[in-house]
């Protein structure tokens, strides 16, 4: 494990603290600099608006050569997020690039909340409903937000 790469994590953490992203809070764990508690505000204009979503984010040993792992801790009704909170997002998988950062990953997750992609589903039930009756699906997503994402 190169010292270089741990330096990168420190830099990213510093920068996130110094120049935070609106609607996103990232806090490194006291005992593990690779584990972050994340709080995302539900994007405006989405069924998640007004909700506060907790996530965990973990940087694997060879980050940034490998993508971070991100998981919703708050229950969310979304075609690309399953009941365990796992997120289906290309940049967390085969489209990862070391040019991406914690910041860009979280912004992408926020964007995914605004623009679900039911064609690439992780939660099949939500995806089906989203395709068939988007209004109804969004209503459920909003109800879940009110119930769980407080």
């Amino acid at each position, binding site marked *: 494990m*190169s010292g*270089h*790469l741990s*330096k*990168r994590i420190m*830099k*990213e953490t510093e920068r996130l603290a110094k120049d935070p992203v609106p609607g996103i809070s990232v806090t490194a764990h006291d005992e593990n600099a690779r584990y972050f508690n994340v709080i995302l505000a539900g994007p405006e204009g989405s069924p998640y608006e007004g909700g506060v979503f907790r996530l965990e984010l973990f940087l694997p040993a*060879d980050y*940034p*050569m490998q993508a971070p792992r991100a998981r919703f801790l708050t229950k969310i009704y979304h075609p690309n997020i399953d009941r365990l909170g796992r997120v289906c997002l290309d940049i967390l998988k085969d*489209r990862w*690039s*070391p*040019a991406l950062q914690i910041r860009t990953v979280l912004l992408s997750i926020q964007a995914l909340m605004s623009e679900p992609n039911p064609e690439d589903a992780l939660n099949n039930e939500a995806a089906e409903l989203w395709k068939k009756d988007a209004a109804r699906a969004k209503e459920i997503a909003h109800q879940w937000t009110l119930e769980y994402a407080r």
Partner: protein
Amino acid sequence: MGNTTSHSDLSVASTVREAPANEPGEPLSLGTRPAPAVETSASGLYTNPTDGAFVQSSSWPSNNDSGAGIGSSVSWLQGGSGRAAQPVPTMVHAYTIRNELNVRKKSVRLIRDPDNPQQFLLEFVFDSTCSGLCTVYFMAKDATSRTTRVEQFHFQPLDETRPVPTPFEAGMGQLYRQNTHRGFVPQKYRQSVLFEQNLTELSKHRYPIVILLQRLPNADDEWAEQKPPPRQTEASATDSGRVRFQATYVTLTMPLKGLELAEEIPVKVAQQKILVDGTIYELQEIYGIEERTGSPDEPGSGPPAVGETDELCIICMTDPRDTTVLPCRHLCLCVDCAQLLRVRSDRCPICRSPVDSLLHIRNLRSNAR
């Protein structure tokens, strides 16, 4: 240096050494010369008087469209380098040298002569650290010799009158403007030949405009006499590793039809080549080098302080960027992380295109001063 040189002039050069023409199978040609062999030993890297870095490399199979003229200028190399990507990209080390002659690509214009509306006058800005000669050729064939050691560029204009070289002094940001009786008269040429987007096609015919800058070894006495370019025997030892010529190939960007009344014919630089130590290099841009070398558009601004995001390696965010991904030419890595990328990934972090090799530019920092 606080002089102004546009960012677009930052370029990379790939070697185009002329091989004896014994490869009839080569599908592509450069200039009028068949089968340029693409040299595989990359060692020359190259910096502008103020900012750029140019490198030579073995192959540029590019799918990158950014940068005017670049797309077309790389296309000819694809045939020579269409091999499959290596599992582990090679690490190539290069040194930088100064480019002493440079036409600023974005400055080239073809403006209607107010005194003689039939003709257009060429105008461009160039930088030179030495005195020399500037020659402009219209509708020129590239007749540079195909020997293993190239001593000079040789262009044949369509009309047999040889253009008269104009002497210039050393200086940054010099404006060249053509004499009124030597302008470009589009009516003299066939339209289909004038307007050709595809450089490979074009090179079979003629280049509409070629600007040749030539450095004179001991310029002050020599250019007054307008001697022919020095032979190899005349080239002094100090000539080694220095740029002797820069050729800038200019094409028209749209057909002339409809431009009868226009004050200016739109042109672009399709390609630039330099001649160093008997070898011709094609110049191509390195993306991201302007962050590394400071903004030359702001005199006195100097290179950015270390610690600014843009000049640091995209992977470790700690060390300065000094390694370029090839063939996409994204300068985004430090040499340590490039080593890591070699074994861990086969994609450019910036554009995700496959990595063929990585080019470490050793003295990029010192050249930025």
